[in-house]
């Protein structure tokens, strides 16, 4: 199963500093290098936060988790974060098995993510 990678409104994302990326298919040993390659130009910009929408991701292995871990580390170094929304149950199970959930920003849906962003904004303004 291939991996389709779609960066939503890339130019606007770079300007705003936040990108949303939809992943469809399988993130595995064969497709993980392609994700890493396609993320490289985005990570070379001033983007600080990336939201991975995994609603259509059917399979993930440790190869995919490593890419997420590397992205998370890079964004953390610039004061941002990697977030994950719409995880299918079997995908969430993989995150849980390696105990990747503590410290990872995982949200059920956009509404939960928006509430989190609003709280972050309030905290910054306080």
């Amino acid at each position: 199963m291939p991996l389709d990678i779609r960066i939503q409104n890339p130019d606007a994302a770079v300007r705003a500093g936040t990108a949303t990326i939809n992943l469809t298919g399988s993130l595995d040993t064969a497709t993980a290098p392609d994700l890493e390659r396609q993320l490289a130009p985005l990570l070379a910009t001033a983007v600080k936060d990336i939201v991975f929408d995994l609603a259509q991701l059917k399979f993930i292995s440790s190869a995919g988790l490593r890419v997420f871990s590397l992205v998370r580390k890079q964004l953390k170094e610039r004061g941002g974060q990697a977030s994950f929304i719409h995880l299918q149950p079997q995908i969430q199970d993989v995150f849980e098995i390696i105990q990747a959930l503590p410290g990872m920003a995982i949200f059920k849906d956009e509404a939960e993510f928006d509430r989190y962003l609003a709280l972050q904004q309030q905290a910054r303004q306080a």
Partner: protein
Amino acid sequence: MILDLHATPEEVMRAVEALQELGATWQLAPTDLFGLALALEECGSNIVKHALHGDARESFRVSIELADNSVTIELRDHGPAFDPTLAPVVPFQADDDQAPGGWGIQLVRRHIDEIHHTRQGGENILRLTKHLHRNSLA
């Protein structure tokens, strides 16, 4: 089913997709099939990367069997002796700046009920057996 595969990530996924098609034919529960596919991907990737150093000229064999209420995947390679069941589990640290390792075997252990490694005739032989849920093989 027996597959002879070149040592590349694409060939590992060819085996995974063959397993997924076979699993659909056998009407395995989706959770069982996902676990089996993940275990095969992780173990196959380890063979490609560490045993055969990603050399596409090298090959390894994957066999998939259905028996009673279990599925067994066997992986055979001619790489150096290596027993993945002895690999230490490296816990993920959310704030750890080091590149994490050992996740693959952790995922395999979570989804596979019996893991056996032997070394025979210069081959590593890894057998992964998963006991199926009751609603599999309906």
